[in-house]
């Protein structure tokens, strides 16, 4: 089925499918006329309009047309190749056509969307684009997919609740794990917490999990260690882990980042001094060590967050504040506790119930406006109460700042090792905010817990367990198969200038010292084409986007 194409142009049998996308495309241009137009283009033996080409019936139609009309090229004019190319090309493959002989034209984004309300112009442009797509399809070549082996071992960076949960789950699936923690002990932030929201001791919970992970065969725990180098690619990463004592080199198939976050401590923030003005995390420690002494407490939410410097909401501080306020109130019923907030982020079922209960216990909640006055002074907090529209003063002997979790200082170095992105707040940036929260866009690397965005212990644990199935989906397979749309460098004409090497963002090009030419590591290449557009001798080309293929498209304009 994956035979190399030997088709001469006169053997061309192109099928063109025009998608209405309901009314998304058909509402703004004349799909029928585009379909009729396509049927007259050189090489086209079949053209069809579909209500939704991507629907199951649309796919079946393509597959049946490939068989019935002996199509050796398929062009679909619909939406974005980013979302739909994999579906269409793999469907062509199922029908016996080489998937690399598929070409996609985007008449939704480029015609119906940008020329909304200009029916004729949109239709004319769709015809142009379809003509270009058909012309390019004629020059496409069949390709074989690239395959590689897999190491069934995973590196987990970070031994907090997320990393430990990931390690536990991965091992339970029969995979081997190397867990690297830079501190001397496992457990992360939970070690310092007093109790969890259900009243359970945080330290005991995390100690239980740490002990389980440390004593499980097949999980190598390296505390007091750092990952210092990562090379290679999905399925075959070479990693170096260093500690004071030793340096270890290992091969792993996937990497899980669970490096957590730290609570912000900022000198001078709202009078922070570590004694009468402390952070919520310091209050946790006081409660845990039973050194807490105060009767009039004011907690200030969003201290150092949701401002121009740090725009995000840290998600966990409201529930932490309410939890601690309730603990104090229960232990000292006469304690006077005020929580100053902007929005109480008690989302979901349990947390909202805590809020009701806290109010019932006599804990006061006041909305404040950060734009107006908010001052922590000697024994009092002055703020503007938004609901009443007045400025209020609360006497207190302890002010607790609910500061956000912030990214670790060493985030950029960890991110740099793997060449994965972070957002502007320094949290790791996942592949898709909604649909791929645990993946990086780089293959074989995953993210969980507060390193992605502040999460509660239950959420971090959920993500840690979840990441394990993302890894398993790769490592449970026999081998790795990847797209053949990669760069190729002709060693006959390459002059070894290394221009391509410097522009490759994936370090997929190496210089062969012996031959004095550049070479592509296909498994690392993502097909971005930077090298091809840089090469002065036209030796680097991108398969599927060769100069003659692009020129065919341009000439058809």
């Amino acid at each position, binding site marked *: 089925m994956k035979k190399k194409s030997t088709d001469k142009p006169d053997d061309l049998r192109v099928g063109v499918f025009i998608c209405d996308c309901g009314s998304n495309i058909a509402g703004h241009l004349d799909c029928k006329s585009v379909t009729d137009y396509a049927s007259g283009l050189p090489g086209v033996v079949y053209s069809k309009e579909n209500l939704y080409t991507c629907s*199951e019936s649309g796919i079946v139609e393509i597959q049946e047309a490939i068989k019935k009309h002996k199509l050796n090229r398929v062009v679909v004019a619909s939406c974005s190749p980013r979302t739909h190319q994999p*579906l269409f090309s793999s469907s062509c493959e199922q029908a016996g056509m080489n998937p690399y002989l598929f070409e996609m034209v985007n008449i939704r984004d480029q015609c119906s969307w940008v020329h909304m309300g200009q029916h004729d112009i949109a239709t004319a442009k769709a015809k142009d684009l379809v003509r270009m797509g058909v012309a390019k399809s004629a020059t496409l070549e069949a390709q074989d997919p690239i395959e590689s082996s897999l190491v069934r071992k995973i590196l987990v960076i970070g031994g907090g609740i997320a990393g430990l949960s990931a390690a536990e789950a991965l091992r339970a699936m*029969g995979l081997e794990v190397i867990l690297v923690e830079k501190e001397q002990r496992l457990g992360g932030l939970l070690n310092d917490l007093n109790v969890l929201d259900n009243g359970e001791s945080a330290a005991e919970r995390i100690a239980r999990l740490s002990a389980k992970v440390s004593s499980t065969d097949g999980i190598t725990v390296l505390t007091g260690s750092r990952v210092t180098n990562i090379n290679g690619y999905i399925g075959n990463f070479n990693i170096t882990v260093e500690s004071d004592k030793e340096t270890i080199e290992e091969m792993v198939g996937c990497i899980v980042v669970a490096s957590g976050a730290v609570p912000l401590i900022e000198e001078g923030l709202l009078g922070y001094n570590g004694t009468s003005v402390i952070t919520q995390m310091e209050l946790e420690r006081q409660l845990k060590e039973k050194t807490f002494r105060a009767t009039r407490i004011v907690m200030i939410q969003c201290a150092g967050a949701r401002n121009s410097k740090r725009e*995000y909401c840290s998600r966990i501080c409201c529930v932490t504040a309410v939890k601690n306020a309730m603990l104090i109130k229960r232990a000292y019923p006469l304690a006077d506790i005020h929580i100053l907030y902007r*929005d109480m982020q008690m989302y*979901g079922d349990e947390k909202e119930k805590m809020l009701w209960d806290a109010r019932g216990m006599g804990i006061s909640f006041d909305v404040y406006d950060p734009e107006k006055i908010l001052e922590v002074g000697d024994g009092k907090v002055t703020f503007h109460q938004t*609901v009443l529209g007045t400025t209020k003063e609360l006497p207190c002997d302890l002010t607790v700042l609910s500061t956000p979790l912030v990214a670790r200082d060493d985030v950029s170095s960890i991110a740099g090792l793997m060449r994965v992105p972070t957002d502007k707040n320094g949290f790791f940036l996942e592949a898709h905010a909604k649909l791929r929260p*645990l993946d990086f866009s780089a293959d074989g690397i995953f993210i969980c817990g507060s390193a992605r965005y502040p999460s509660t212990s239950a959420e971090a644990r959920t993500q840690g367990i979840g990441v394990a199935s993302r890894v398993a989906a790769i490592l449970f397979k026999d081998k790795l198969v990847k797209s053949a749309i990669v760069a190729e460098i002709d060693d006959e004409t390459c002059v070894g200038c290394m221009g391509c090497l410097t522009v490759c963002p994936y370090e997929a090009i190496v210089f062969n010292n012996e031959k004095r030419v550049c070479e592509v590591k296909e498994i690392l290449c993502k097909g971005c084409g930077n090298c091809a557009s840089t090469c002065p001798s036209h030796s680097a080309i991108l398969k599927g986007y060769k100069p003659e293929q692009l020129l065919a498209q341009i000439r058809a304009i």
Partner: protein
Amino acid sequence: MLDVGRHPNIELMAYSEVEKVEGSAGCFKVRVRKKARYVDEAKCTGCGACTEKCPTDVLDLYNEKHSTRKAVYSWFAQGIPSTHVIDADHCRVLQGKKCGLCQRQCEAGAIDFEQKDRIVELDIGSIITASGYTVFDPSRIPEYRYRDLPNVVSAMEFERFLSASGPTHGHLERPSDISVRQEIAVLEKLEGRGSRALERLEEKHGEVSADVYKRFQKAESGDDPELQQWMAKYADYLLLKEKLEELKEKAALFANAKKLAFIQCVGSRDLRFYPFCSGFCCMHSIKEAVIAHEHDNDTTSVIFGMDIRAVGKGFDEYKVRGSNKSNISYRRSRVAEIVNGPGNNPVLVYEDTQAQVVRRETFDLVILATACAPADGIADLADILGIELNEFGFFKTSPENPVDTTREGIFVCGCAHSPMDIPESVAQASSAASRAVQTVTHEKLLTVS
């Protein structure tokens, strides 16, 4: 959805219900009822030819009853599987009447009126329940007058109005205006029919109805039954036309909704209904307001809520951007009631706490951010699965084992667990998959050893 539908290791059993679960983790016996579709799954290609010919219109639940579908249909155009289904409550044949147009139309021969429910027994290692939630019915809140006031809609209805494939093709037409337009369409059809009937009579008698009518009115002579009938028809026609003109005049003044109000916590954070926070509605309202503004830059939105819970990565930033760029204002207030104003404009009555006065503000359209209620039938499903519910009516789990239900080998994710947004649901789904694989792998390891 398509990825799942095409996955070689996933067998989709849509339109099916679990009836019984026996056994234990690693070796469950599950009985599933595959409900009769009256369409053969193996033969149906999802082409939709049956739907085109079906004469029966049924209110479309997918579009929140703002449009109609046929009695043979698929839930929505890109639904997986694309196999159609016949709605037995409305299909003429299944209601014992004559029809069968779909059967004659179907080239694949997939229509099977004799199809019965089928029982399938499955051997299953592990179970994940992702049975979701039910949208709270806002008509249970008397002060918001949902259903009484045409221009008070639920968040899901509004979602359909905003959709390019929805009942208004993405234009923010107001439900009160839509019903007038629908009435006009019906009357126009009647008018056409009436005028054709009159034309036939005019042709037959070689006279214009209006002239005859004048004479008829003067003479008041009414012996000729045919003439009487003709004139009665003409009188009806005149009335109809008058009504139509009137409606058209009214409709000419209609404008799309531009001033929107969103009311948060409708059914949530409300001890009368659900005490919990539904988690996603604040962001949902902000998103809908942003999209409405994208569609028409003159749109302004006010979001009434107790807290705006933009708790998620990038959410608070999105909320701020909404107010800076999309004409959204956030008002901390719980709306007391909605009353009808002139021109079917809903009027919101609420307290402005800072000024300490009760305000009345008129909007074009009000959107109710309805609660994420435990799914209808969740208690029955819990019984079948042999698992417990928590105090809020969702499946019970613990923080230490966040996706494990109270029965080994059965896991839960998404809004069946508790109200949550998309990224959390997806992360939790991966987590449930992970636990399920662990159960199955564990069993496999045991069998091997």
